[in-house]
């Protein structure tokens, strides 16, 4: 006997993501989902952000990693509430993990929650976390072909950060091609060029975040 079902398999995740999104809206919180390959500088980006803006805005951070609490320890030094999610080898965060984590925060007291996804350009893209904005982070040493090789991230992200631009003189990175490919995938995509090391582009990034907070 065949039973017709027609069920979206990720509906459970989508429903939880909608709950996270509603919670963010209820408390007026901006949720940022950072997606990148491992080593692109997501945690450094968070550190840079907190060092400039923690006096002005109230942040919370959710760190996703397969193992260790290293990133959470780095972020905790800034005196902001941080929760580490260890996925026990899992390659991406899902909405249920974020939803459960929200209990660890005093949401009344927060304006921005930064979610650092597990470093991976494929799997995190398929799972809505309820974020307000999705941010793709690519660093120069990864090569200019990342957008065309991982198009789904760049089709769904709201912003791309090209990080570690201080390394451009040393690496064969075709920035014109990188930009052209992103614009072809997503004509409305804004790209911020930055280096957490030299501080170049940081002001533009901070201004972008400030513009999101009501």
């Amino acid at each position, binding site marked *: *006997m*065949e*039973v*017709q*079902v*027609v*069920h*979206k*398999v*990720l509906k*459970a*995740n989508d429903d939880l993501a909608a709950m996270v999104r509603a919670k963010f809206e209820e408390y007026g919180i901006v949720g940022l989902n950072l997606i990148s390959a491992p080593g692109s500088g997501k945690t450094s980006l968070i550190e840079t952000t907190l060092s400039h803006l923690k006096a002005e805005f109230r942040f919370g951070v959710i760190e996703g990693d397969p193992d260790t609490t290293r990133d959470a320890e780095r972020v905790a030094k800034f005196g902001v509430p941080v929760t580490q999610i260890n996925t026990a080898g*899992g*390659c*991406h965060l*899902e909405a249920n993990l974020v939803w459960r984590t929200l209990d660890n925060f005093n949401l009344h007291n927060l304006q921005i929650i930064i979610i650092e996804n597990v470093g*991976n350009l*494929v*799997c995190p893209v*398929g*799972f809505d976390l309820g974020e307000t904005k999705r941010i793709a982070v690519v660093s120069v040493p990864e090569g200019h072909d990342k957008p*065309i090789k991982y*198009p*789904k991230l760049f*089709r769904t992200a709201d912003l791309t950060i090209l990080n570690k631009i201080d390394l451009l003189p040393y690496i064969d990175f075709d920035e014109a091609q990188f930009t052209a*490919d992103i614009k*072809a*995938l*997503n*004509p409305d995509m804004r790209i911020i060029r930055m280096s957490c090391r030299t501080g170049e582009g940081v002001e533009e990034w901070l201004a972008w975040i400030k513009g999101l907070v009501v």
Partner: protein
Amino acid sequence: MHEYSLMQALMDKTIEIAAEHGHPKVERIKLQIGELQHIVPDILEFAFEVMAKGTIAETADLVWDVVPVKIKCQQCHTEFEPHDVFWVCPQCESSGGEIKQGDEFILESITFVDPAGEL
């Protein structure tokens, strides 16, 4: 690796539906998988094998139809099946657009073993 998460969600739903209908054994699970899901068939099948073990779906067949990508051009609204990663519209040659199909991962149907056939 997202195949494992999808498979876990699929198994949960399958067992839930079997319980609702009072069926003890699954014969076949049929899916619709969009090309944009970037599913590796071998990984999906292996995930099924691992996760179905010891469940009512242990001996079931997993089958699926691949759903091709269909894009609606954001400029001229032509619907087309893209031939490259940039989704260039064959009418107006602009790129990008709205996904009309090809991003789904849908449990279409479950076939349960007919208790009479078991005899």
